[in-house]
């Protein structure tokens, strides 16, 4: 078994940034930290190939955090360890997005094929950021990797289903945004009154179900 490589850096006095080999490894690391909860760990935030560990600067056990991180990295190096059963979230989508034709032009695919490929994939919630409940979903067909718009929209409606680079996402709120819009869902992606408030949580599997426009 190769010795796991792990890089832990201070992010100021109240956080550590732990680099992981992959986003999947970052999820394992987060799960391990949440399970072990070394002293002083307050929150964890998964990024693309990293976990930010928020700490109490006055009472954290840095050595314990390092041990947990090393153990998680070692487990990753050995066998694929699933962090429990994976939830599958199905999201109904009306594919009538404002950028569908543009994405078709950029990819050289007919619009119907863009939709078919987008709806055919199974996605993983890699991490959540940008805004509450905004999940970055990986697993997008490489043919659909397109750059963001040159100029972001001032307002993307809540529920917009969009792509940018290797990701697809559903906008939980009406926000400014530069991703290319393929469609929309009526599901509430984020609702603070709900438990949990976010439809998607890191590690979930996501499937988009095409719906006819009404």
């Amino acid at each position, binding site marked *: 078994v190769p010795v796991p490589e792990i890089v832990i850096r201070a992010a*100021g*006095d109240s956080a550590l*940034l732990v680099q992981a080999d992959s986003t999947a490894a970052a999820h394992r690391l987060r799960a391990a930290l949440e399970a072990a909860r070394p002293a002083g760990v*307050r929150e964890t935030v998964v990024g*693309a190939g990293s976990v930010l560990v928020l700490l109490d600067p006055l009472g954290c056990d840095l050595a314990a955090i390092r041990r947990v991180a090393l153990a998680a990295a070692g487990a990753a190096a050995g066998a694929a360890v699933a962090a429990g059963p994976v939830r599958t979230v199905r999201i109904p989508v009306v594919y009538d997005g404002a950028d569908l034709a543009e994405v078709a032009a950029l990819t050289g695919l007919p619009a119907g094929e863009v939709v078919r490929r987008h709806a055919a994939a199974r996605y993983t919630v890699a991490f959540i950021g940008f*805004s509450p409940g905004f999940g970055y979903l990986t697993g997008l067909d490489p043919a659909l990797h397109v750059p963001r718009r040159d100029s972001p929209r001032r307002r993307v409606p809540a529920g917009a289903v969009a792509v940018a680079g290797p990701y697809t996402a559903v906008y939980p709120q009406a926000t400014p945004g530069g991703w290319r819009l393929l469609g929309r869902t009526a599901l509430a992606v984020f609702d603070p009154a709900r438990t949990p408030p976010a439809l998607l949580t890191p590690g979930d599997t996501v499937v988009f179900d095409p719906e006819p426009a009404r």
Partner: protein
Amino acid sequence: VIEVLAAGPLTTVQDAGRHGWRWLGVPVAGPADWFSHTVANRLVGNADGAAALEVTLAGPTLRFEVPATVAVVGAVATLGGVAVPSGAAFPVPALCPLAIGRTTPGARGYLAVAGGFEVPPVLGSRSTDTLAGLGPAPLAAGDRLAIGRWPGGGEPGRSGSGGGQRPAGGQVDRPFGQESGTPQSGAGAAAGSGSAGQVDRPFGQESGTPQSGAGAAVGSGSAGQVDRPFGQESGMPQSGAGAAVGSGSAGQVDRPFGQESGTPQSGAGAAAGSGSAGQVDRPFGQESGTPQSGAGAAAGSGSAGQVDRPFGQESGPPLRRNPDDGPLRVVPGPHAEWFGPAALRTLCGSPFTVTPASDRVGIRLAGPALDRAGGAELPVTGMVAGALQVPPDGQPILLLANHGPTGGYPVLAVVVTADLPAAGQARPGQTLRFRPVSREEAVAAYTALRAALDAAVPGRGQGAARLR
């Protein structure tokens, strides 16, 4: 219930923040200056992190429908047109309008009311989140805010003994009261008010002005000096109108601060009142100008020495009240490899100007471009308050309390927790400087600041035993 008569440019409710939801993309929010927020809450006997108002540049005007005990930190204020002390608790009678004026010495002030502001929590927090739009909207004229039940279960200002009911206020005087406290009695009153004036200056010295009579000569003298930098309405408070502040229960409020000299209605008492405000303020900021230089007032430097003791060799004050108090300390990283070798030197060797495009999310700085290595974009990464993110144009963004939980620009360095209050007080046009420290030094600075805070204004449960 409190009615908002005028809202101010941006007044928000902030508690300790919306912790525990970053993993779902929810910002923390909370106060831009955690230290001042904590002091304001402790002054009225609230738990740390109770919901208080954060005022930006200038404050709201409020009308309380029931009497309440209030503390304002970092802003001038008038009650019924009469200046009230900054950095001390005072009673607000029903229906008497409380007007928060300009913030000083920084961009943000805090108003705490005993019992806290009772707005519906969202995801466990009452904080306004200006980025994600969670929590209560910023204050608007006509809003009505409920006051929570004071956690002690009684009227916070009721007990004259000051002990259990007002644990925070009761302690304020202790740690640094010795020198400056004595002169306030008897003949020393003049000296007391004089030094109070010096100490208070950055706070606008509202409390020294209202009284007429014996104390007024000295008090208003220093008030004149004080008012100038802030363009204060210098004539405002004279005449016996000070009674509005000092009347009745004000004596109770002051007593916990150790004012032997009696009730604030008298001239000397009012001077003492401002003295206590100064005492309260001193530990968190050394307002009297440049404490390091030793040029400060006798009282100021005396107490500064006490405050400094807990952190030993550190020569400066434990708290930088705003960016003028010294360079903000930063821990380099975590994305050092994304930058050229000169970037950290440039950051820590050059002034950066706070641009107007700054808010609770972050401070956009203008200065020499920080040299990024290569053109690649950082993968999405968790972010922390204090992070100095550097977009491709090399102009850093200092993330504040309402930053998004993730970001896509590499972080050259992170401002230490002890200096976040100063960062949160930065005003547009102000110059920021940075100085690198180790993580260990950052933790030591934070430890020292917490100790100074607890010594100056103990939190609930910290004070009662020591008072007796």
